[in-house]
């Protein structure tokens, strides 16, 4: 007696297993990086914890590993498709960013809104900049002293920026249980999909039933 797929509230598949694996691996490594960074950088914490070498090694290896899930994800078709979506900015994305009414649904958002796209590219770029500058600091023979000073400068400011991006990302997630469910279980309700990402919901309908379009 199961209802037909198109009747009533229905679960929408948002993220594949591979995509969620990438997300949660990055979450784990990023958390380790941020906690150890706080100890290495913040004076009272550095004095409290000490053990500079151990903390530094954990930070450095978590940092080296951080881009790996992002790169390994490319093996997944769903991940590559979402990378393409995040990469491309349409004219309605620019309107969305400028509009004060971006949340009221007048601008029909696809799978990702423009804010999510901006966050994704800033986060990815920052991770690779932090990796490069981190390498220069960890292996002092790679570059001359003034470049190492520059690398420290860049590492500090990008870490601050990335920290703020992560805080913003968590703040938005905390406000939206259904979005969190999407990343935890891979599925969201049809209602949520239609309210937050209507153009994406239409796309899924068209894929399921080409005649409906």
């Amino acid at each position, binding site marked *: 007696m199961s209802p037909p797929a198109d009747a009533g509230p229905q679960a929408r598949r948002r993220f594949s297993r591979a995509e969620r694996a990438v997300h949660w691996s990055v979450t784990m490594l990023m958390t380790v990086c941020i906690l150890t960074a706080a100890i290495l*950088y913040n*004076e009272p914490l*550095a*004095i409290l*914890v*000490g*053990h*500079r*070498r151990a903390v530094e090694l954990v930070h450095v290896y978590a940092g080296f590993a951080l881009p790996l899930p992002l790169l390994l994800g490319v093996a997944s078709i769903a991940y590559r498709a979402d990378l*393409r*979506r*995040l*990469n*491309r*900015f*349409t*004219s*309605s*994305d620019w309107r969305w960013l400028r509009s004060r009414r971006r949340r009221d649904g007048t601008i*029909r958002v*696809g*799978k990702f809104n423009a804010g999510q*796209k*901006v966050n*994704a*590219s*800033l986060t*990815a*770029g*920052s991770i*690779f*900049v932090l990796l*490069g*500058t981190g390498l*220069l*600091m*960890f292996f*002092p023979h790679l*570059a*001359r*002293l*003034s*470049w*190492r*000073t*520059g*690398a*420290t*400068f*860049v590492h*500090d*400011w*990008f*870490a*601050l920026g990335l920290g703020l991006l992560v805080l913003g990302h968590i703040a938005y997630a905390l406000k939206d249980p259904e979005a969190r469910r999407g990343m935890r279980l891979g599925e969201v309700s049809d209602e949520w999909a239609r309210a937050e990402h209507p*153009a994406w919901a*239409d*796309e899924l309908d*068209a894929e399921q039933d080409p005649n409906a*379009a």
Partner: protein
Amino acid sequence: MPPDEPRERAGAPVGRRTVVGLLALGGAGVVGGSWVQNGLARLLAPLENRDPTGLIALFPLGDTFRFYSVTGSVPTRTAASYRLAVSGLVTRPATYTLADLQALPQTRFVHDFQCVTGWRVPDVHWAGVPLSLLLRRAEPSPAARAVRFHSFDGAYTESMTLDEAHRSDVIVALQMLGAPVTHDHGGPVRMYAASMYGYKSTKWLSGIELTRDAVPGYWERRGYDIDGTIKD
């Protein structure tokens, strides 16, 4: 079909451009960051000192100390309990109290503190006993060619050749930043070698031992050069 759908897949590759832009910015920052940082620090230091909100101090201007300690917690040594032993290949081993060291002739100068990883604290005021004076008083035996420093943190050691140890900018520091060396900065007594990277300036100094050869120190066993002289 909804009108937005075809355009959703098209559009400019802004994401990729953002990533490439950040990488370029990072690269420019590595090459020019040292210069920008000096300017920023010079511009903001007077404000930072008078900033009642303390907000400026939250920005990573890169001109402040980062506190390194390789052990969990370091015992406190007071003026009464502090001792510095000069030992090893010497004719006259000695143990100095803090008062003994304070009674010796002091050298004062202003010099940057430079970490091998790149960060630098400009224009730090230093004062202390020239290491060469303590060495002269100990009368090293002809076999001694290097100096090994011990820390009362129980783990850290460092070394220099005897020639390096005789440089006039190598001091047993009793003061830094215009005041007695604080515990967190390695007080009451630490090494400071102006022409070498920070890892050569042993904090919480407890012993100066003359040895036949330079014994690799804590960070040197973990990859840093035994010759810590600052090179551009």
